């Protein structure tokens, strides 16, 4: 009975994604497609984290690529300069992101709305400057190379391998997020979004709850950043740049604020579309911008919630 309940409610969407991820490679004409699909899953992972913060708790962050940067540089700097094994560097990166998020989040999350947006933006910019300027450690603007992830003597390399790693990681990340939402902490987060005063009056420690979700979302971004670096084998400060942060926000909003599967859709749109539009040459970015605007005008609330609402309406 428990398994049935599980499948029916929370984790059904993940089972569906698993099915799609399993059959999708049959349609891939080349390794390049594995690469693009892997990037979709990796960015979706970061977008889930940001969605918990933005879509559910209602707290914006325009600096989340900073945490992607921490995760990415951890797996580059750890093995190169400190002789740490890549897997340990990966874990250390996530831990460091959590600590940084905790320390930065405490003062910053007291701010609201636009003030929070600008403060997080500043945080992201600050981190990418650090990655650019600490050239001895990070290779500066040219970046640095990243050694392969080696587990029990097996080295993770190649687009196909990373496709499977990122797909499975995405599913784990999505499952954890869906678990959280169906729990006391998840309900508290969603409550904060609508009325902080009512949430507090029901005994919710709003400041602590915001900090918790900020730390969780930072860890998601950090893990995505580590994957990105390990997968590419090369890392530059751009990975943590302002544009990356904006791109993450766009993924969350496009797919649907407060929709975990929306984060996957948002990531898919923003990773695949630029590749698909390259035939437009100089007009590529313009077309991308127009499509994004169109989606938000016609599918207000993001792709997944809008489509879900359409299906709900069609039912008697």
């Amino acid at each position: 009975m428990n398994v049935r309940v599980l499948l029916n409610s929370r984790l059904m969407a993940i089972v569906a994604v698993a099915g799609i991820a399993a059959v999708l490679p049959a349609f891939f004409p080349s390794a390049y497609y594995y690469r693009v699909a892997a990037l979709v899953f990796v960015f979706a992972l970061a977008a889930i984290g940001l969605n918990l913060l933005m879509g559910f708790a209602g707290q914006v962050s325009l600096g989340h690529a900073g945490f992607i940067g921490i995760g990415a540089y951890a797996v580059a700097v750890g093995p190169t300069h400190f002789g740490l094994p890549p897997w340990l560097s990966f874990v250390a990166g996530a831990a460091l992101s959590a600590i940084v998020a905790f320390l930065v989040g405490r003062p910053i999350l007291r701010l609201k709305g636009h003030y929070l947006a600008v403060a997080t933006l500043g945080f992201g910019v600050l981190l990418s400057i650090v990655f650019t300027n600490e050239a001895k450690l990070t290779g500066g603007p040219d970046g640095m190379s990243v050694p392969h992830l080696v587990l029990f003597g097996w080295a993770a390399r190649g687009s196909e391998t990373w496709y499977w790693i990122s797909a499975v990681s995405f599913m784990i990340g999505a499952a954890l997020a869906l678990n959280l939402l169906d729990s006391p902490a998840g309900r508290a987060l969603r409550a904060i979004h609508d009325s902080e005063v009512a949430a507090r009056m029901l005994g919710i420690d709003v400041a602590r709850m915001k900090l918790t979700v900020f730390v969780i979302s930072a860890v998601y971004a950090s893990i995505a950043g580590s994957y990105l670096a390990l997968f590419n084998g090369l890392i530059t400060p751009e990975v943590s740049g302002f544009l990356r942060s904006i791109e993450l926000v766009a993924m969350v909003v496009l797919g649907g604020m407060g929709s975990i599967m929306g984060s996957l859709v948002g990531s898919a749109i923003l990773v695949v579309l630029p590749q698909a539009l390259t035939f437009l040459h100089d007009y590529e970015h313009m077309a991308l911008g127009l499509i994004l605007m169109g989606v938000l005008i016609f599918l207000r609330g993001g792709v997944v919630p809008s489509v879900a609402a359409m299906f709900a309406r069609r039912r008697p």
Partner: protein
Amino acid sequence: MTILSTERLSISFGGVRAVDAVSLEIDAGKVFSIIGPNGAGKTTLFNIISGIYVPEEGRVRLAGEDVTGLVPERLARCGLSRTFQNLQIFFRMTAIENVMVGRHRHETTGILADLLHLPSVGRQNERTRAAALAALDRVGLAADAERPAGSLAYGALKRLEIARALASEPKALLLDEPAAGCNPVETQELERVIRSIVKDGITVVLVEHDMRLVMNVSDRIHVLANGRTLAEGTAAEVRANPAVIEAYLGVQRSREAARAVG
């Protein structure tokens, strides 16, 4: 026995004394109403008692303990709950989810258990849901449990806030104008709800403009005007008090007269 009391509470906004040396003694298990004209300071008084504002002077005591200046989340854990004059609904959630949030202080799982959805979380979710449904049932909203809160009518939202507050199992419950915007049927339903809450031993502090409701359910009535105490007593005493008639009921009457004419 006194469950909730204030001692010469005062607060001002830009030189205006919104609440001025107000002392209350509220008996456990009774309905204590606070009335007064618009801007008398009733909501401000609630905001101080519930920790949203810190008073400039005076003390608040809850169940014998000095709770002055405690933040709302601490007061909630001490057994205080309230509803809001301007609704504070979690609009992105369903009715029952709103009330489930009310169970927060009784939920014990940690964030790691929540992320992993350990069996304890599943069991707790079930308990929370059952308690929330019971609270919804008490205010007559059980049939609307799964509806998005945003789709409920105004009067239902008022009762949803009461259910949410009840779910936290408070010792004292502050209701700020629960009958505002309700039709006569809904107001009657509300009266029944208030009586049932008190029967469970929960103290109700009621701020309300609907005089019929106030006179019907109140054990004691405290009258405020311009932030200051004007009178206190039973319904009969307050109704007969000349100062009250002049400052408050008079306003009410002239308003009714105006309505009758207009």
